[in-house]
């Protein structure tokens, strides 16, 4: 017997032993799953190939899945026509400014509302909560009119200022401050190091560290929104 015949026999025996490991039901399920996954993936596969096609190639009849002639023109057109650097700079500028302003202003507002007793503090807090409940669509038109009258349409400040002035994180930050007993005030870092242990790192239970967690979660939420 030749080597190739031996190899063929070994491979068929291996495939038979692999098939015998699965029941008929499992094989049928796998086939159905494969067919369904192909059906669901077909638009994505078509889109992938479409990005390498020319417009005449896309409109030919009968349609084919793979391109008749491959081209990278679509990709070069994307980089020629879109100023990606400017778009990303605008995004980072907007997200960064909004996040920083939210962190500073929201935490200060929340501390004042949660810890300082002054006349009308609960009313201000309730007003903030009510304003948070309003959907953005309700304030959309008045906000546009306001920005238009200020001459801030199609500008970055026109995007940044309204978003920075929404006290969306005040309530969550306020509940954080309320959760702390009055006796546990924010410790300075030097005191915290002394009480936190010999390592010099802040204790996991310390208010500063907990507040930094709260701030990081707010910054993530603000940056995502």
């Amino acid at each position: 017997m030749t080597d190739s015949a031996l190899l063929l026999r070994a491979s068929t025996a291996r495939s038979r032993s692999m098939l015998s490991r699965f029941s008929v039901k499992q094989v049928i399920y796998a086939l159905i799953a494969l067919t369904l996954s192909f059906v669901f993936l077909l638009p994505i596969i078509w889109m992938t190939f479409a990005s390498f096609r020319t417009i005449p190639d896309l409109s030919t009849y009968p349609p084919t899945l793979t391109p008749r002639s491959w081209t990278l023109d679509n990709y070069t057109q994307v980089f020629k026509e879109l100023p990606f650097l400017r778009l990303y700079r605008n995004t980072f500028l907007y997200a960064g400014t909004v996040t920083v302003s939210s962190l500073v202003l929201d935490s200060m507002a929340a501390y004042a509302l949660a810890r300082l007793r002054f006349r009308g503090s609960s009313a201000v807090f309730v007003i903030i909560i009510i304003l948070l409940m309003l959907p953005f669509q309700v304030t959309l038109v008045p906000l546009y009119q306001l920005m238009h009258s200020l001459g801030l349409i199609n500008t970055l400040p026109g995007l940044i200022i309204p978003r920075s002035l929404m006290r969306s994180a005040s309530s969550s930050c306020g509940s954080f401050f309320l959760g702390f007993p009055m006796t546990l005030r924010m410790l300075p870092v030097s005191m915290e190091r002394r009480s936190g242990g010999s390592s010099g790192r802040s204790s996991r239970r310390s208010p500063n560290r907990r507040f930094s967690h709260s701030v990081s979660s707010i910054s993530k939420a603000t940056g995502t929104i």
Partner: protein
Amino acid sequence: MMMYRVGFQNLQFGYAAALSYVLVGMLMVLAFVQVSYFRRRAVHY
């Protein structure tokens, strides 16, 4: 929005597909950088 306009109003499917793939690629790079940066700085309790 631009992808929709290019693809379904201007009927430039190839350009729209390329646009979407470029966007996906950039987002993947940014996500990878962010995940690797935060994994390094993660605090395990």
